[in-house]
């Protein structure tokens, strides 16, 4: 069974540019989460999809971040325009049932904004 895959693994962009991160969850997982870890800090929740619907986007930093999940399958997270403080590692995770608790994580997309 394929795990959660994320693309790209590393992106280096200039301040003001746009970047789109993609996450392919495990097939059949309705729940999809985006998290971010800024250097040395805790992993912070960004948002949660149930199928194609945004269940909770309370962690999104501001309106420069836009997440979508087309047809309840893969998800994209767009940052436009990128700022220096957006640098970090963006993790995607998926799960089946809420009461299980175990999230399956991808390897992360490292974003560096110069």
């Amino acid at each position: 069974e394929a795990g959660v895959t994320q693309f790209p693994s590393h992106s280096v962009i200039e301040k003001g540019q746009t970047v789109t991160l993609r996450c392919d969850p495990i097939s059949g997982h309705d729940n999809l989460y985006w998290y971010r870890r800024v250097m040395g800090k805790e992993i912070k929740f960004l948002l949660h999809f149930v199928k194609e619907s945004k269940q909770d986007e309370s962690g999104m930093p501001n309106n420069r971040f836009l997440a979508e999940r087309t047809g309840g399958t893969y998800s994209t997270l767009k940052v436009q325009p990128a700022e220096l403080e957006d640098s970090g590692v963006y993790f995607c995770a998926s799960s089946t049932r809420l009461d299980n608790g175990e999230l399956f994580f991808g390897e992360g997309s490292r974003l560096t904004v110069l």
Partner: protein
Amino acid sequence: AQSVAQPEDQVNVAEGNPLTVKCTYSVSGNPYLFWYVQYPNRGLQFLLKYITGDNLVKGSYGFEAEFNKSQTSFHLKKPSALVSDSALYFCAVRDFWGSSNTGKLIFGQGTTLQVKP
């Protein structure tokens, strides 16, 4: 609001010695607690969880964690450390909004475990 604290940025231990990575939590209600590990250039991997039942939880790779309600702690332990255990370890608690299970996890800052030969 739920929160998790990992008081140590780094833990150093010699191979073969027991290891402990500390975690304390603050929740309203009963906690759902987790440990994840991140090896270099890899994603987070689930190690173990505590939902209910025995206070000593056994997980992957010989790790275990002890839930202590009076001390609000969930320390990760292993009787004999291996060099290959060197990694970044995260403690997490399930977030509940009132009585609703949101499914999301709240993570600590992470603790780097360095096991030396």
